[in-house]
């Protein structure tokens, strides 16, 4: 009870306290209300802080010197200072001095001047600030190539952490994801190992960890092998192979199932259920009934085509297998199975003739057929044999393959040529098979015969081929009989030719009179330079010796009139004269002497007033008597030429040597052209080129130094390639 009372009292107290609080709140609110009302009427007045100051007129607003009528003088203040004992002598003295001094303060400078000074100072400051960029600017000007933006990140893949580092969670989805990650203590920043993994790693000793790692490696390797194998097997196009494989798998499965029945009955039951399900499905569907489009077409073909027939048969078999109720296998059912098999017409099971001795698939087929036959005949052994059959088949396959490989290798060793032929033929045959397999199976035996013939031909060919080639060549080279005859004619006169005859002629020629007249032009040098006679293997048929003499005389006659050399000399002198500047004649007849018809200006006057111009530079053909070289300037090229020396060069030789190497790809290798014509500035598309900041500038400076060294390395590595 007491406790109850206490509680009560406590409650009461609390209530009273709250009441009191309420009361104080009311007061405050009231005040606020009043204030609000009062402020509504007039604007807020500025509260004046009251100050007490000694003055005649006391204003409630400010302090002023009104009433005294005068300004406060220094003397007034001084007086009081003198009187006060607290003030130090020093200040007193200073004040006195101040009173006595008459100087006024200087006027402040006018606005313009101050601004000018300020500008000057600012300029100096900024100049100093900016000058730290000078080196970079110079360097960039000199740089062969600039790449913008300057702070390019290294290309290539980046680590996830680097990419994620600057990224923040924003959307609710991301938040959710990250929360989840955090909860599960998954890595957010460093995804190399999860904490759990790290812990587990720590838990293991080094040895254990190594073993574990090795195991994992092994498992991975095995998996990859398995995958590779599966892939390879999947790629095999042979239907037969897959069929066999499937059957083998089936067998395997059955075996396993049998084992399972013994060891793991529950698992077996499940398997059974699965089989039952598949059976149900099969029964529901018409999948392997002979009712599909394909099956119908096959049915039509079946009459003529063994393969079609077989395919049909297989399908039916499949249906039967699937729809078969799976119970514990008994002999009766097997028999019924066999009966079902036998319902299919007999010709289906007829063994096929030996088709191809080379084609392993065909061989496989044959053996398969035989085994089937054996199966049919020996029913008792069948079950046992059937199991082995597929394995045998697969084994046989491989064996044959190996055998074939060996054979092929042998062939390769024996002769390379034949192999190519064989291969070709094989290919051909395979093609043939694929084409005609479905339709004319029987005819193939003949074909293979042909093929064998071909191979025999191929073996025989080397000699034959050569013969053929010779024949062809002959056809090309010798067109027809006429041609042959002509060739013979051409060849015939050869032996008749005598090399001795022309020499006499040569002697004649050299003994020819060297020049007709003596001229300025040195004829010896020009035209009658000693000509060496040439021995000719056969004489020209057209010109006989007598004829030649006649011709010479005729030519001499023909060219007797026109003197080639004198004409040329005239021409040359004319040109030279045209090139020489004319003499300027300034003589005025009649000045200083008598003038008139028939009177010439006197000699002294002519001498005086005829001005000779400076001689032109020596002609190019000055020393070549038999050559006239035009002195005209080629103005057409001039419009394409450089006429003013560009900046750093001081003479033409420097500039010309600097452009002497062509830059086109016609004269240079690809790499050199690229190097020579690289652009001065490279900008990355879409990238923002921001102004360089001071920190970056330092970086760039360093980088450029490094780049230079890199360049040289690049060159050297390039040249390495050609070793």
């Amino acid at each position, binding site marked *: 009870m007491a406790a109850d009372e206490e509680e009560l009292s406590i409650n009461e107290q609390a209530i009273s306290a709250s009441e009191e609080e309420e009361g104080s709140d009311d007061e405050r609110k009231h005040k606020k209300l009043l204030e609000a009302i009062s402020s509504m009427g007039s604007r807020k007045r500025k509260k004046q802080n009251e100050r007490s100051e000694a003055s005649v007129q006391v204003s409630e607003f400010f302090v002023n010197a009104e009433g005294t009528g005068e300004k406060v003088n220094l003397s007034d203040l001084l007086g009081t200072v003198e009187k006060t004992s607290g003030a130090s002598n020093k200040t007193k003295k200073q004040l006195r001095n101040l009173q006595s001094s008459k100087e006024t303060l200087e006027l402040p400078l006018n606005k313009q001047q101050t601004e000018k000074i300020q500008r000057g100072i600012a300029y100096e400051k900024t100049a100093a600030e900016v000058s730290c960029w000078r080196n970079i600017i110079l360097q960039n000007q000199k740089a062969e190539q600039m790449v913008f933006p300057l702070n390019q990140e290294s290309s290539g893949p980046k680590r996830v952490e680097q990419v994620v580092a600057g990224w923040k969670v924003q959307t609710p989805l991301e938040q959710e994801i990250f929360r989840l990650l955090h909860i599960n203590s998954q890595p957010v920043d460093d995804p190399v190992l999860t904490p759990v993994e790290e812990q587990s790693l720590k838990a293991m000793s080094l040895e254990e960890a190594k*073993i574990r790692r*090795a*195991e994992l490696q*092994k498992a991975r390797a095995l998996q990859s092998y398995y995958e590779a194998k599966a892939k390879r097997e999947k790629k095999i196009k042979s239907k037969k192979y897959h069929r066999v494989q499937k059957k083998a798998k089936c067998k395997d499965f059955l075996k396993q199932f049998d084992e399972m029945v013994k060891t793991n009955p529950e698992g077996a039951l499940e398997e059974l259920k699965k089989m039952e399900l598949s059976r149900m499905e099969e029964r529901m569907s018409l999948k392997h009934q002979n009712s599909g489009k394909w099956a119908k077409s096959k049915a039509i073909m079946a009459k003529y085509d063994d393969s079609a027939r077989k395919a049909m048969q297989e399908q039916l078999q499949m249906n039967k297998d699937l729809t078969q109720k799976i119970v514990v296998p008994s002999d009766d059912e097997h028999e019924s199975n066999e009966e079902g098999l036998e319902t299919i017409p007999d010709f289906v099971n007829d063994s096929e003739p030996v088709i191809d001795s080379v084609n392993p698939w065909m061989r496989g087929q044959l053996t398969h057929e035989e085994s089937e036959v054996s199966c049919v005949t020996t029913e008792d052994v069948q079950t046992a044999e059937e199991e082995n059959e597929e394995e045998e088949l697969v084994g046989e396959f491989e064996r044959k393959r190996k055998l074939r490989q060996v054979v092929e290798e042998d062939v390769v060793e024996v002769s390379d040529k034949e192999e190519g032929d064989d291969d070709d033929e094989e290919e051909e045959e395979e093609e043939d098979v694929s084409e005609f397999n479905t339709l004319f199976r029987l005819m193939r035996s003949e074909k293979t015969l042909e093929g064998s013939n071909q191979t025999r031909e191929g073996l025989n060919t080397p000699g034959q081929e050569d013969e053929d080639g010779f024949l062809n060549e002959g056809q*090309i*080279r010798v067109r027809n009989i*006429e041609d042959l005859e*002509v*060739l013979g004619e*051409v*060849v015939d*006169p050869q032996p008749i030719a005598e090399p001795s005859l022309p020499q006499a*002629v*040569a002697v004649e*020629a050299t003994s020819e009179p060297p020049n007709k007249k003596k001229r300025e032009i040195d004829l010896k040098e020009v035209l009658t*330079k000693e000509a*060496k*006679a*040439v021995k*000719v*293997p056969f*004489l*020209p*048929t*057209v010109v006989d010796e007598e004829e*030649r003499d006649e011709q010479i005389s005729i*030519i001499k006659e023909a060219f007797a009139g026109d003197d*080639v*050399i004198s*004409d040329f000399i005239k021409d040359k002198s004319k040109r030279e004269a045209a090139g020489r500047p004319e003499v300027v004649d300034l003589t005025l007849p009649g000045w200083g002497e008598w003038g008139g018809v028939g009177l010439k200006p006197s000699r002294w006057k002519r001498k005086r007033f005829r001005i000779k111009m400076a001689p032109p530079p020596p002609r190019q053909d000055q020393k070549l008597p*038999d*050559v*006239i*070289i035009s002195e*005209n300037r*080629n103005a057409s090229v*001039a*419009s*394409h*030429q*450089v*006429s003013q*020396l560009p900046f*750093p060069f*001081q003479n*033409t030789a*420097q*500039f010309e*040597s*600097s*452009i002497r*190497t062509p830059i086109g790809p016609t*004269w*240079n*290798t690809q*790499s*050199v052209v690229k190097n020579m014509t690289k652009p001065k500035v490279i900008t990355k598309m879409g990238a923002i080129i921001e102004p360089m900041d001071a920190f970056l500038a330092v970086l760039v400076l360093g980088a450029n130094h490094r780049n230079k060294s890199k360049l040289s390395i690049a*060159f*050297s590595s390039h*040249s390495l390639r050609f070793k």
Partner: protein
Amino acid sequence: MAALVPEVLTSTHVEKMNKKKPPKRYWEETENTDQRRPEEEQGTAVQNQNKSTVKERSLKRKNGESLEKKDPFSGEAPIPHKQLQKFQRGEKYKVPAGARQRLKEAIISSEAMSELAQKQAARYDLLLPEDAGFLEGDEDEDTNTISQDDIADAADITSGSKYFNLHLSQFGPYRLDYGRTGRHLLVGGKKGHVACIDWQSKDLMCEMNVMETVNDVKWLHTEAMFAVAQKRWLYIYDSKGLELHCVKKFNDVLRMQFLPYHFLLATASATGFLQYLDVSVGKEIAAICTKMGRLDVMSQNPHNAVIHLGHPNGTISLWSPNQKEPLVKILCHRGAVRSLTVDKTGTYMVTSGLDRKLKVYDIRAFKPLHSCFLPAGASCLSLSQRGLLSAATGDIVQVYQNVLGSSPVSKPYMAHRLQGQIWGLAYCPFEDVLGIGHGEGFTSMIVPGAGEPNFDALDTNPFRSSKQRQEWEVKALLEKVQPELIGLDPGQLSKVDQASFEQRHKEHVEALGFDPLAKDKFKPKTKKKGRSSAGAIEKRKRKVAHEDQRDKIRQTVQERTERDKEQKEKSNEKKNLGNKSTLDRFRK
């Protein structure tokens, strides 16, 4: 199955662990030594030995005897000096002594670049692996006695098939031309028969008779077009024989040359005109009246695209489309010039004249190197890419070797007799084949060592496909050299034009036909209220008449007065100095 795997794995793994130790790492070394097993203790001695050797090695290394193998071929692969020289362009320029920084840098960088280019080119020279062939006789056997049949028999089938005859006796002596790639052959008979053949496959592209005299035939830039100089006009056909153009501006053309890099067809006519046709735009670039009579000897210099013409007065003249007069005129023969040819590098010219001489000229210096006397004189000449000279003397074709050297030749390298007069001779580019057009048709003759074995596939590719040809055509057109750049020196463009401003201005004025800097005449404004009367206009004109002259006069007068003044002042000073007395200092 899946359950089985791990078991198997572990088991196998354990086995493996037993069998195989993991490879030793250098950081594991100490650990292993610590965990030495008792079985291994036997082998420790050996190990220790090994260790000691290792220590020795490390010691040695420390001592400075570096055991690392030295690279026997350190540094860049050396380039043979000969190859380097082959690609040298001009002399290296050394930085002058007092050069400024910028100049120094410019020179150094340009030199480095040209050196790099030279080196790389020399290295890539390795990629020209083909060698030229040659003909070698037995002992005491002259190579010129070996018949074509023997050669064809001895050579491989494809090479042997390059010797063949086309019997075309009906339409008279044949002119011929090979395309730039050397695959296509164009033959034109005097009596109008024109045919183009892909001669290697013997595939006839077209054949026709133009029913007119044919003077010359020439392929244009590709095998798609060719020009035929007929009796009156110049015709252009396509490869199927379709007539594309009849160019009536070009009449009586006797000889033609095609300048492949300029896309210019140069023609020489019976009327003495040398004309240039720009094939890319179909415009006549220049028509020059040579005033030398009938022009039936023509050749081009492949080095600088200058046309060489031979004349009946024994001279040879060199022409560019930019000058109305010959660049050079050389007196070569006493009789008329019969034929001439220029070698690929533009260094040598070979001429033959009616005086039955064969002369070799150095056309850089315009000096004759040597001459030889041919019994019948050469009616046609042709130089191969490798410098073999073929000369047609009557009905015999002779091929000479080493003609371009300084020593004269004494006997031909090969010879071949044909039927009828030889009318055209041409070497097939990139093949060892000489095409001969004669009275009885065409003969393709094998000349071992004639063709350049290495071709520039970007320029002339004998094996190019049609697509490549199209691409090449576009590129070639883009890189077409303008006809203004033709001149004796092809390097003219890379030289600074040092002509004076006046001369250049004069040339400019000449080219434009007016002076762009000239002031136009003063034209007084028309004013109203009678102020534009004739008298007033005249007055106003007089105000500005001779303005520049006046300016000049004013200037000179001013200068003179200033000079006078100065002189006066000087003389005054001198006078003053001379008259100064001691009392002058008191003068105020």
